[in-house]
């Protein structure tokens, strides 16, 4: 017995250094090398930049941050193409030649005119396409005359020399601030692949030197010292290529930079309004990178993107302002650099470091929405810039590409609210409004609304939809509605979905769809936009209404496809999938705006129609007046008309529904924020998604739109498949007073808001499919839906 313990203890552990261990070690090594050593990362970023997605490291009692200053320029409404430091100050170049010199003194910045008469005389009479100016006054520019591109290099003495290095191809000019203009010219096509030819022009002599070809579609070129950053996006692939100018060679990719900028590159192919900017710092190795999230400092091939300015705290985060140019100068207070930034609206701002104020203001106002909401984002940016003593933070429950689901985000929100950590302003889109009202979470806004409505006019018919027992708990900032388009006689008198279904059934088309919806999914969504709710006052499911809805959908489905064969239907669906803009509501007027292959000639009547369909339906939910311009012009072209689509009474879909948390510690500020978001000043000055709820704002916008009428707003051209030679050009005009009046009447006629409970909506969408395409009986499906909803309602 005594010896037993000892012998057992002699069991040694033998590690087999077999294949698996070696493989494991190799994998670990590969992973370590493959990345840029995240283990050494001590900074909180390392490729993941802190942003306004909420919850980032909130500063302690640190002091000092960048404050934004507006620059009082003379020619604010002229788009600024470039901004760079010169000996006397900062040169601000505008595309018509209305340049300015910004000189900063102790009191702020003053702008001096710097009009170059030699250029102005040309710019006045020509339509400038692209221009770049250098320190010495030399310019290189391109304009279009008589369908031809003409390019000139203007010396610093004012002499205009023709410059046609690229022949007829398009060229974009960039000033490298190193004594050269850089010119990029795109060649090739999507199929064969793009290349960009790069050359540079000496600003003193006008001599052109060919540099090299970049094998991608470049949309942005930045020169920082010896580095040349070329941002590209060819539709599939995007990224940043780095070149050494002196060595004429491509350098290795900077992975951290690429990762940080990738999502901005993906969304853009615009060479004028840049999704990001890179500028050199005048001292040291780093560059400054500007994105929507803020300004970052980065050492090339380093691992960190260090945030210098938080985007959401200033106009950088304002999505309605698009960047055009940026530069950095030294000599700010405390040795911190000063940043100068120009926006496409013509405004210019600068950021100066102030070490007296706290890094983050004391009072925090949290604005929360489940998904990213651009209306609210702009409101936050605007409110923040007016109140630098506050920190207004916009948080989204769901960021993109996460492992989270909507329900998880809801649960986190519930946790926050329950523990008293809840946000101050809630955007109720996607949140269970009635449930929250029941639990007494939301503040009663009736008083505030009464005050607001006394001073400015609102769409009361829309706002009233949120009253519960006479009290208001949320106010939408905007709303969307659906329009039906087709020949006037056809769509007149269609007052509810019944008549709509009958109309479709009675239509005859030759082998094409009638309204282009075709799939069960889209039909359900489109009809749901206008249908009444399916819950009665007692909170139960209204089976009759649902039954009617589904039967109508089924009729529409059958009618839509009636004239087409099965393969044709499949083909159509496949084609449309790539072209149409899938919105939450099934179809949008934006589909329409895009033109390109949307119209084709109806061989029977030799007139144009939408995809060959006599009717079209879509929701208007973006920049309303712009959409209206397109809508009216295109409808006139097609000889058709539009009306608001309704089912008995007219419904609209409210968006950006704002509410205040009753338990908030900053109720006054939160209410003030709502007031700001709903006031005319704000709503008319930004691009809202949907019709602004502030009627005064809408009327103001209409007035300024009328100023341009009659006039040319834009033009579209396209050719459609099969007939490449035939190209159509359509002029888009500004809407006339009559068109605007018609719109206003339609909006005033809205009777109710269509706020459908998310769960019921999703269930109907899911289970309704089988009723619509005939696989199941409508009664059966209503039963199934009722079953499912019963559980939900019973909870």
């Amino acid at each position: 017995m005594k010896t037993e313990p000892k012998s057992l203890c002699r069991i040694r552990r033998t590690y087999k250094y077999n294949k698996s261990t070696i493989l494991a070690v190799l994998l670990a090594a590969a992973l370590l090398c493959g990345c840029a050593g995240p283990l050494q990362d001590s900074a909180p970023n390392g490729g993941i930049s802190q942003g306004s997605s909420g919850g980032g490291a909130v500063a302690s009692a640190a002091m000092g941050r960048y404050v934004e200053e507006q620059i009082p320029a003379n020619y604010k409404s002229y788009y600024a193409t470039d901004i760079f430091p010169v000996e006397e100050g900062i040169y601000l170049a505008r595309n018509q030649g209305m340049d300015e010199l910004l000189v900063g003194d102790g009191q702020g910045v003053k702008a001096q005119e710097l009009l170059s008469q030699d250029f102005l005389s040309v710019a006045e009479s020509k339509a400038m396409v692209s221009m770049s100016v250098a320190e010495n006054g030399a310019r290189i520019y391109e304009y279009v005359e008589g369908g031809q591109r003409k390019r000139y290099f203007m010396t610093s003495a004012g002499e205009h020399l023709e410059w046609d290095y690229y022949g007829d191809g398009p060229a974009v000019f960039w000033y490298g601030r190193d004594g050269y203009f850089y010119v990029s010219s795109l060649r090739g096509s999507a199929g064969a692949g793009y290349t960009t030819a790069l050359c540079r022009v000496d600003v003193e002599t006008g001599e052109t030197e060919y540099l090299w070809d970049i094998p991608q579609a470049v949309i942005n070129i930045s020169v920082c010292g010896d580095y040349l950053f070329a941002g590209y996006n060819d539709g599939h692939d995007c990224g940043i290529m780095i070149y050494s100018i002196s060595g004429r060679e491509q350098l290795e990719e900077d992975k951290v930079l690429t990762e940080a900028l990738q999502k901005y590159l993906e969304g853009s192919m615009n060479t004028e309004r840049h999704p990001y900017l890179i500028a050199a710092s005048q001292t040291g190795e780093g560059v400054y990178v500007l994105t929507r999230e803020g300004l970052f400092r980065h050492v090339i091939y380093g691992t960190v993107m260090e945030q210098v300015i938080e985007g959401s705290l200033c106009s950088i985060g304002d999505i309605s302002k698009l960047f055009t140019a940026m530069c950095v100068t030294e000599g700010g207070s405390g040795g911190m650099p000063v940043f100068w930034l120009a926006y496409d609206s013509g405004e210019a701002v600068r950021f100066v470091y102030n070490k007296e104020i706290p890094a983050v203001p004391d009072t925090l106002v949290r604005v929360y929405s489940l998904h990213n909401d651009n209306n609210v984002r702009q409101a936050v940016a605007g409110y923040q810039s007016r109140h630098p003593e506050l920190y207004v933070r916009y948080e989204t429950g769901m960021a993109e590409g996460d492992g989270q689901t909507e329900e998880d985000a809801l649960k986190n929100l519930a946790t926050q609210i329950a523990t008293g950590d809840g946000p101050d302003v809630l955007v109720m889109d996607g949140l269970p409004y009635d449930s929250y009202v029941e639990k007494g979470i939301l503040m009663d806004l009736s008083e505030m609304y009464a005050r607001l409505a006394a001073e400015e006019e609102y769409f009361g018919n829309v706002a009233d939809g949120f009253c519960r027992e006479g009290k208001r708990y949320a106010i939408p900032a905007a709303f969307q509605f659906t329009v039906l388009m087709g020949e006037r006689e056809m769509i007149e008198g269609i007052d509810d979905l019944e008549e709509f279904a009958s109309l479709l059934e009675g239509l005859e088309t030759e082998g094409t769809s009638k309204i282009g919806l075709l799939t069960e999914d889209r039909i359900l969504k489109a009809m749901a936009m206008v249908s009444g709710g399916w819950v009665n006052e007692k909170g139960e499911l209204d089976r009759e209404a649902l039954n009617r809805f589904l039967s109508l959908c089924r009729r529409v489905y059958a009618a839509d496809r009636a004239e087409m064969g099965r393969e044709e239907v499949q083909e159509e669906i496949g084609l449309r999938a790539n072209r149409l803009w899938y919105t939450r509501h099934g179809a949008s007027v934006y589909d329409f705006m895009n033109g390109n292959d949307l119209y084709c000639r109806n061989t029977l009547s030799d007139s144009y129609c939408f995809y060959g369909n006599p009717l079209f339906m879509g929701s208007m939910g973006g920049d309303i007046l712009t959409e209206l311009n397109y809508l009216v012009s295109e409808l006139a072209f097609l000889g058709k008309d539009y009306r608001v689509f309704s089912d008995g009474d007219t419904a609209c879909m409210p968006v950006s529904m704002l509410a205040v948390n009753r338990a908030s510690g900053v109720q006054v500020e939160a209410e003030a924020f709502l007031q700001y978001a709903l006031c005319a000043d704000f709503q008319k000055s930004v691009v809202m998604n949907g019709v602004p709820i502030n009627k005064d704002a809408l009327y103001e916008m209409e007035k300024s739109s009328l100023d341009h009428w009659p006039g040319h707003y834009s033009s579209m051209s396209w050719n459609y498949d099969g007939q490449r030679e035939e190209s159509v050009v359509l002029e888009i005009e500004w809407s006339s007073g009559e068109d605007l009046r018609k719109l206003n009447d339609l909006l005033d006629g809205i009777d109710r808001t269509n706020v459908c409970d998310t769960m019921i909506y999703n269930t109907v969408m899911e289970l309704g499919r089988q009723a619509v395409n005939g696989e199941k009986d409508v009664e059966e499906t209503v039963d199934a839906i009722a079953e499912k909803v019963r559980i939900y309602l019973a909870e």
Partner: protein
Amino acid sequence: MRKKYGFTWLSKLMFLLPGILGICVFTLIPFLDVLKRSFYTSLSKEFCGLANYRAVLQNQAFRLAAYHTARFAGVCLPLLLVVGLGLALAMDRYPFLEKWKAMYLFPMAMPGASIVLVWKLFFARQGLLNGFLGSRIDFFQGENAFWMLAFIYIWRNLGYTLVLWLAALKAVPGEVLEAARMDGAGNAESFFYITLPCLKGNCFTITVLSLLNVFKVFREAYLISGPYPPAEAYLLQYVFHNWYANLDFDKMAAGAVLSAAVAGSTVLLLKRIWDKGEGKL
């Protein structure tokens, strides 16, 4: 002797103390807090006695979920145990089969999100299985949903069940079995009279673990069907989850305490049946 006893008592305590402290803070306190919440209203924190319990018991959704959870556990647990045991027996009998063990463990290593992707590809109406069979069965509705859930559960948990059963089987003393065989007992007899009784303790462990995992299957099921699955697959977890998101913390707490009580008493009952050796050693 006296001194040593006192000393060992302290060192014995040190074995348990850190664990118990930590458990108290991170597990016991939340547990008690939930218990407390079940007697108060959700956000306004007013005492309301048993009102929550009454509301929960009368709540249709809860009853439905409880029924289905019980059904799920009743069907799947034995199934899992039996299949696991069968496989373990096979591997025990033919030791060369043990290398297949790793394959059964793979499902446990798969992260939930990728399971969902594969599942959707596999079970969708246009998915691989339907393609293979040439049918259009909707696996996400009705009864099918229940079996799909059961399948996911078994697929995930078979691995460790197998491992644990195997370990348990190996602990059955070999000499006894040999002696039985020499004396002429057949396979079935030696199994039922020797092996099985020895496994009782382990059976208890595995059952409790599998019961816990019934609750954990929620995550995948939720990723697949969303927060409102068809009725047959509506488990208790869904109710709690939805109550939570709707800020009904009081009902959730009451429901949880009820279900924990039921589960707890089942476990205790099983312990009594299977783990009688407690305290004897």
